């Protein structure tokens, strides 16, 4: 940019804000501590093991039947990448088309702004109760709590979200938020919390569903305001879409007078042809179904049919900051199918609560720190053995392991900048890097390591080491370093190749 005299003026890059501290993207404790506690719950381990194994098998079967699955995945990835590259244009198109069809579009920079917007919209209707469609965006911003503070009661209508709400619990899975509970626990919960429930209720899944149905029907028939998220927003026609299994979402989307939809800005797709790709990828990846039972779409307001007052709240909350990260930005391609959770060996053992964010599992381990800034979720990028199972099943080919490694580097760089005195780990890593950066130094370090032979027990195994190696020896032995390294064996047996070549 030039000023009046034609000289260049440096304006600097504006800093892009991360997600506000309102909402549920950050845990109260680091992942290893929360994981240790969750690992100590045997019922949780059994519930999770059984549920993830079932859904893994279902997904593998229905994905296996699609001959061009890899092409579909690539199409999904390419559409998302192209959309993100012109996100501003697609969002403005969406806004124009929704407005042209009688809806109102609002922009929310962060969770606090979105909560205030939605609360005002509900207040304006004069209602004190709303029904909710299952939605990750509203979980992310803590909308229910914000409404409650304003004296408005939000009723979750997705069966699993209802279970979580009645139990005053937190969701532990993106798709199956009550995956950590079994049906005996749910029966006990219903008997305790649902008024006038039939006391002879058993833990038969059909009976439980019917009990929830009776409870929810009253809500559907009396509610005048509904709040939803959106799986997709089609820019070319200003159409929002919700994909679900139960039909409870459709009740909320059609019966009330007012509908308020909170949608993350990354959920926009340019055209219906793009939507088609994701409607094939999503159900097979998430519930392991060929097609989901209910796909609702709505474009603004249809006179005389459905809600006559429609508001779309477009939510940033750290998404623009994530978009600015060249390596991390593809995390925004996520369509919230949860396939990565169901195959993750870490998630399967710790469950979702250990991640502290509404986005658990492998995708949560990258998405949460990208939205909040990595220093606010610094333990999550390390909550993975980098086994790569998540990348293999992702329907939009998000390279989660590479992004985890990238975020670890961002964290270490931030730490090194923030602390004049390096951490213990950093000192160890620097020392190791120095020792390993040239062979003569490395040989001397190996000689020192062989001093570890002194720690060896009777069987040539080391069973106890000081911190941080105590994490290893708590459950595993370590071999005593042999007397001779491979290198010294080679030099003794074969002499120096390098020497031979020189001579």
């Amino acid at each position, binding site marked *: 940019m030039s000023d009046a005299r034609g000289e260049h003026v440096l304006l600097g890059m504006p800093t892009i804000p991360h997600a506000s501290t309102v909402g549920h993207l950050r845990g109260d404790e680091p992942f290893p501590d929360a994981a240790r506690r969750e*690992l100590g719950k045997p019922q949780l381990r059994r519930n999770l093991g059984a549920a993830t194994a079932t859904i893994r098998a279902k997904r593998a079967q229905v994905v296996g039947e699609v001959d061009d699955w890899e092409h579909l995945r690539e199409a999904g990835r390419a559409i998302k990448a192209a959309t993100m590259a012109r996100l501003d244009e697609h969002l403005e198109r969406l806004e124009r088309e929704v407005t042209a069809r009688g809806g109102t579009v609002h922009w929310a920079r962060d969770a606090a702004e979105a909560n205030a917007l939605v609360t005002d919209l509900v207040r304006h209707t004069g209602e004190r109760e709303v029904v909710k469609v299952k939605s990750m965006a509203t979980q992310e911003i803590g909308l229910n709590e914000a409404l409650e503070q304003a004296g408005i009661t939000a009723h979750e209508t997705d069966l699993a979200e209802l279970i979580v709400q009645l139990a005053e619990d937190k969701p532990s899975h993106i798709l199956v938020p009550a995956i950590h509970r079994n049906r005996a626990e749910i029966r006990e919960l219903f008997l305790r919390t649902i008024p006038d429930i039939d006391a002879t209720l058993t833990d038969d899944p059909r009976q439980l569903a019917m009990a929830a149905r009776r409870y929810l029907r009253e809500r559907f028939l009396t509610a005048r305001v509904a709040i939803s998220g959106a799986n997709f927003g089609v820019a070319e026609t200003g159409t929002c879409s919700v994909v679900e299994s139960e039909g409870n979402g459709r009740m909320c989307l059609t019966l009330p007078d007012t509908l308020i939809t909170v949608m993350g800005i990354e959920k926009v797709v340019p055209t219906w042809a793009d939507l088609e790709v994701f409607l094939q990828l999503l159900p097979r990846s998430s519930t392991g179904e060929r097609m989901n039972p209910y796909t609702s779409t709505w474009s603004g307001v249809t006179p005389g049919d459905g809600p006559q007052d429609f508001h779309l709240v477009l939510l940033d909350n750290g998404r623009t900051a994530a978009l600015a990260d060249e390596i991390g930005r593809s995390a925004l391609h996520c369509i919230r199918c949860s396939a990565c959770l169901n195959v993750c060996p870490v998630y399967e053992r710790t469950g979702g609560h250990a991640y502290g964010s509404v986005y658990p599992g492998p995708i949560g381990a990258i998405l949460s720190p990208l939205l909040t800034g990595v220093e606010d979720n610094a333990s999550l990028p390390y909550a993975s053995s980098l086994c790569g199972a998540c990348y293999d099943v992702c329907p939009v080919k998000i390279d989660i392991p590479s992004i985890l490694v990238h975020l670890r580097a961002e964290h270490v760089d931030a730490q090194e900048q923030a602390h004049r005195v390096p951490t213990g780990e950093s000192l160890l890593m620097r020392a190791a890097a120095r020792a390993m950066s040239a062979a003569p130094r490395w040989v001397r370090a*190996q000689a020192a390591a062989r001093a570890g032979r002194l720690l060896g027990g009777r069987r040539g195994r080391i069973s106890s080491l000081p911190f941080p190696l105590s994490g290893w020896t708590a459950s595993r032995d370590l071999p005593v370093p042999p007397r001779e390294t491979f290198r010294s064996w080679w030099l003794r047996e074969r002499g120096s190749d390098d020497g031979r070549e020189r001579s």
Partner: protein
Amino acid sequence: MRIAVFITCLADTLQPQVGRALVDLLERLGHQVVFPEAQTCCGQMHINTGYQRQAMPLVRNHVAAFESADVVVAPSGSCVGSVRHQHAQVAHRCGDAGLAAAAEEVGRRTFELSELLVDVLGVDDVGAFFPHRVTYHPTCHSLRMLRVGEKPLRLLRNVGGIDLAELPDADQCCGFGGTFALKNADTSTAMLADKMRHVMSTRAEVCTAGDSSCLMHIGGGLSRLRSGTRTLHLAEILASTRERSWMP
């Protein structure tokens, strides 16, 4: 063929017999083995723990050590994965495009053992003899980063006298993950417990794999349990003959 061994820091220090078996096997197949002495470590531990800038001297050293080699083999799928997929990325991130290009070249010529044997040397029967009950753990990076697929099993099925037992849930991670085993020791142990349960359910004498580090993890757990099942690297089984067994 003239084959350079990248022994890896871990096998060099803690499992030198794996390297000796590798040399024995390749020489038995009629190849010339060399050991570039400038090698140290690929830097995977640094890279995967977030210390990418600190790993740069290691990447530079590794590329220099193997730049002139025609073919490189390592007894570790994850170290090969790091050389092939991470070195160039790290160099790019740290702004050294020249090193990134050189690293990509070295990566293209670096192979895990089963890849070297089946793809480069074109053998799937190495004439080995190993009369023991064995189960094979595929290891995550060999399976999902290198896509070695069935190659190690093809080699094992052709071993004389072997009694190969299928490992249940074989594709599940053993829980090692480098510093993951220290930073998330409890979760890692929970994963290891299931892996060991499956290994022991096969009643195998030996659990084998193409990666020394995963074997050190599984072996460390089996040793603690006094399970009687031991771990051997794929190279040690393939190096075994009627005349000389690498079974301790």
